[in-house]
């Protein structure tokens, strides 16, 4: 059963179908149904995935451009499956959340929701692609729907933000294109299939150049420190739903790319550049957090927190220990849920009052307790409170990095304190204290909004206490990746008798 193609097919057909539906309400319901179908199919696929089976499962490979050896190659390993699950869970939630977000946009509501479904198809495609060329195509194609969602439905400076986002990612994409072509030609295998290309580049200097080509594109996509300035603008101007997908899934393609392509295709270069990447990510963590503290606009603040979180993920990927690797992958999933919840609740708040500035709020807790409660839980997950899923991944990333790189791990752990500051300070300024005049008549969450936030918080709690099912899928995949990078975990100083830790 060609699972992955059906998934993408359903969402694309859904997207076309939505454009044909005349009245808006029906269009939204149709989109919701399609996204739920895709979710159900993915879950069915995930159930059949055997964690300890061979690396790539549900593989489908057809010739696309035989002349260049370009295949429509899709398959899923542990990491990709988990990320596809994340995106497929987020989309129906986003559809439900942006029920009224699309009215104010330049284009029609139907276009917004069809763009959403197209984006979903591409998200699945980008994670499932095992052909480097196909991956690149999806990597670039993803930008278009997101560009239109920001450009036509965003806030005040939406066009500036959309263009900046597009140009930034395209610039990265072009570098990657050069690297992809160079890889194809140097490898000389006449094929773009990832499995064939692994380990073909021996000479270290070429590896370094190709690594840089890929890495800069991924560093822009998952904003590492110097390339991050597009994210706050894009996330702040995008409608809440689009911002969730942008930060929750699109940016993960960057870190996923690092883990999959940078590490496996160019192991020696990866080892050579690790100190650089670790420094960039540590700067990102501390810098992102500090700038987040100083923000006045809520969505920009959340965007900067994501810059800090991506610093953690990148550090986890390049620390190259099993704990850090699987921690980073888990972090990608958890960050999707936690920042998704934070963005959506902030989106509800902004939708009610209309202004994104923190100073326009105050004492909402008294007026809308449920909204404040969910906002607090989402915030706590963002500052990775134990008992919520982000703690598990952050803990694994830090403990994994500590094994190999002591000082960066310690500096990164200060991120934990800064996270507490920016979240609680934002929460205090918006929710606590005397109720501001402007917020007196703020309605609490309605049924639809509760349905949006409830699953996310439930997921955060469940994976906070019992992350085993996710980790069982991720660990073998990460072990494979690291073994292909021929890297072993450092030995403990005191070997404990029995390994049953």
């Amino acid at each position, binding site marked *: 059963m060609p699972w992955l193609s059906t998934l993408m097919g359903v969402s694309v057909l859904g997207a076309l179908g939505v454009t044909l539906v005349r009245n808006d309400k029906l269009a939204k319901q149709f989109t919701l149904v399609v996204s739920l179908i895709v979710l159900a199919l993915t879950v069915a696929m995930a159930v059949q995935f055997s964690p300890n089976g061979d690396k790539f499962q549900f593989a489908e490979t057809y010739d696309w451009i035989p002349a260049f050896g370009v295949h429509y190659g899709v398959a899923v390993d542990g990491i990709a499956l988990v990320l596809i699950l994340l995106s497929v869970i987020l989309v129906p939630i986003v559809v439900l959340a942006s029920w009224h977000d699309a009215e104010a946009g330049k284009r029609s509501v139907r276009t917004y929701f069809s763009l959403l479904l197209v984006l979903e198809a591409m998200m699945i495609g980008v994670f499932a692609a095992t052909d480097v060329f196909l991956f690149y195509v999806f990597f670039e194609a993803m930008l278009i729907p997101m560009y239109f969602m920001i450009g036509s439905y965003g806030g005040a400076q939406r066009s500036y933000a959309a263009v*900046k986002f597009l140009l930034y990612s395209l610039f990265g994409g072009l570098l990657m294109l050069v690297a992809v072509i160079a890889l194809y030609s140097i490898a000389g295998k006449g094929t773009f299939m990832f499995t064939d290309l692994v380990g073909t580049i021996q000479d270290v200097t070429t590896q370094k150049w190709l690594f840089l080509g890929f890495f800069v594109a991924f560093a822009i996509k998952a904003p590492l420190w*110097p390339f991050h*300035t*597009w994210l706050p603008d894009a996330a702040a101007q995008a409608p809440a739903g689009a911002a969730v997908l942008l930060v929750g899934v699109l940016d993960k393609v960057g870190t996923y790319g690092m883990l999959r392509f940078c590490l496996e295709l160019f192991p020696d270069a990866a080892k050579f550049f690790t100190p650089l990447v670790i420094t960039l990510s540590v700067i990102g963590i501390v*810098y992102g957090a*500090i*700038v987040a*503290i*100083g*923000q006045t606009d809520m969505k920009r603040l959340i965007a900067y927190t994501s810059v800090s979180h991506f610093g953690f993920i990148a550090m986890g990927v390049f620390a190259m220990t*099993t*704990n850090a690797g699987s921690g980073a992958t888990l972090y990608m999933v958890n960050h999707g849920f936690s920042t998704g919840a934070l963005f959506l609740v902030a989106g509800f708040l902004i939708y009610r009052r209309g202004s994104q500035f923190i100073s326009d709020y105050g*004492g909402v*807790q*008294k007026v809308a307790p449920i909204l404040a*409660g969910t906002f607090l839980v989402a915030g*706590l997950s963002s500052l990775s*409170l*134990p*008992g919520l899923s982000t*703690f*598990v991944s952050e*803990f*694994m990333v*830090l*403990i994994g990095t*500590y*094994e190999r790189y*002591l000082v960066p*791990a*310690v500096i990164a*752990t*200060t991120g*934990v*304190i800064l996270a*507490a*500051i920016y979240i*609680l*300070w934002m929460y*205090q300024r918006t*929710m*606590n*204290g*005397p*109720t501001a005049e402007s917020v007196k008549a703020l309605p609490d969450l309605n049924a639809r909004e509760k349905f949006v936030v409830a699953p996310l918080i439930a997921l955060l709690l469940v994976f906070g206490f*019992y*992350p*085993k099912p996710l*980790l*069982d899928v991720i*660990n073998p995949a990460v072990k494979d990746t690291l073994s292909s990078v021929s890297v072993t975990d450092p030995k*403990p*100083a*005191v*070997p*404990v*008798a*029995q390994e*049953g*830790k």
Partner: protein
Amino acid sequence: MEPAEIIQHSGGAIGAAWLMIALPLVGAAILLLGGRRTDKIGHLLGVLMAVASFAVAALSFVQLLGFAPGERRRGIELYDFVPGLAKVGLLVDPLSISFCLLITGVGSLIHIYSIGYMAHDPNRRRFFAYLNLFVAAMLLLVLADNYVALFVGWEGVGLASYLLIGFWQHKPSAATAAKKAFIVNRVGDFGLLIGLFTIFATFHTLAFNDVFANADKASSGTLTAIGLLLLVGACGKSAQLPLQSWLLDAMEGPTPVSALIHAATMVTAGVYLIVRSGPIYQGAETAQLVVTIVGVATLLAGAIIGTAKDDIKKALAGSTMSQIGYMVLAAGIGPAGYAFAIAHLITHGFFKADMFLGAGSVMHAMNDEVDMRKYGALRKVMPVTFATFAIGYLAIIGFPLLSGYFTKDGIIETVMEHNAVLGWLAVLGAGITGFYMSRLVFMTFFGAKRWEPTAHPHESPAVMTWPLIILSIGAIGLGAFLVLGNRFMTFLAPAVGAPEEMPSFHPFSLTGLATLALVAVGAVFAWFRYGAAEVPAVAPRGSFLTTFARRDLYGDALNEALFMRPGQWLTRLAVFFDNRGVDGLVNGLAAGIGGTSGRLRRIQTGFVRSYALSIFLGAAVLAGAWLVVGNL
């Protein structure tokens, strides 16, 4: 004597130990998610859950007593939390069970007390939910069999204290205090986290059993580092010296919160951590020394702050800080001090909770007035509160035969044997404690009436006084019960080990008499200053020392100057740099390209002749180039 081996266990009350955590957790969930419907039964459900978990704790205690002392450490396997990193399990041994009894016991009493105290509060349901959440988290902390679960409980407790301190969050001061408490705790947790990572890096495991079994194999340098990092965590949670500023602000929360969290249970978590990680500290002499120094320093600082505070709750908070300083001091000495530290912790739990609740009922009566200068002569009006408060007062200053006398003097004696300087500082601390506790009691219950015109105090209802009475009974007898005949030390021995020869308690030792004398002097001096003399309604301008004490030894000012001010400055700089620097670079690049294209545009002048000229010159250059190339 080395701690005993952990035996895997199943069945019986201990087997159901996880119920202790689950019950309050379920209670909290029901109350939080229940919404309006659970308002009526909210508080009863909360109390029920607390009492039920107390019952389970008591049953497992009885079952534990049934076993021979050697195999009293029972481990319960729960589930694999993070494959390859941490298996979650519970460890029921004398140390954790005594904590559980303290938490659930005092916790239940405080739950009952808060029914009365929070009777007229609209969000009472949410209050009980948070209390249950706190009890669950604290139990997880003490029952955990590895450091990860301990850390989950550790931060859970921090969250609960954040929620409870900021319970009346419409008050900006409460909100800021809650945020401050959480962030300072987070700083402590930062240290604890790094400690955990070091443990994992050295032992590749975080389970207590494995870590402590191989503790001696690790190098003393790593052990010292781990010890110090754990100490940072402990300081954060137990408000020891470097990270103590949040405790006094935490008094913004309702009084039962202060009683439960900031007197009896949460603040003692640090001591629990140090005692539990005994084997690590044994391998690190310097770490133990630092612990004792921190203990003594906080002991004195707390006492000095206690003397200058007019707010009754802040004074009690100062005294809590100093009493915990005693426990940390005792824990820092090693196995000899563990038993006394935990004994003092339990007795302190009782009489400090008793006094806090007493203060709560005084505030309740004086419609939430906290300034002691507005009290005076309340002993006749509130006899029961006065009686229970007096018992607590006598216990804390170490009045002979009361529980404080046995445990606190026990600590002072073991410290004296260990290190004379620390011993005498402890004795001095006891003296100051005598002074400020007497000052507190005399200002509140004795002297002339300095009430506000609107205040007409009355005795609190039965639901509040009964927990006071029970706690005061504990304050009287518990100390003797635990210390006499080293009963508690032998009970704890399998869990934390014990010194070779048991100390024998002889009342009339030199240090004992010296402490009694100093305490007496403090009390008499307090009588003359506050009991007999006229207490001014407005705080007089104090000498340099008093303002120093009033400003919490400038702890807050220090934090502000060192961290807060530069932090804000750094944030503004970072935001400016981000907007101008990195973003400026990007936009500058775009503007640059725009500018150059604007200028290049001018070349197209529209005149045919200028184009002809450029062609002509081009041709000339080309010809020249051919010429040059041709001749090369």
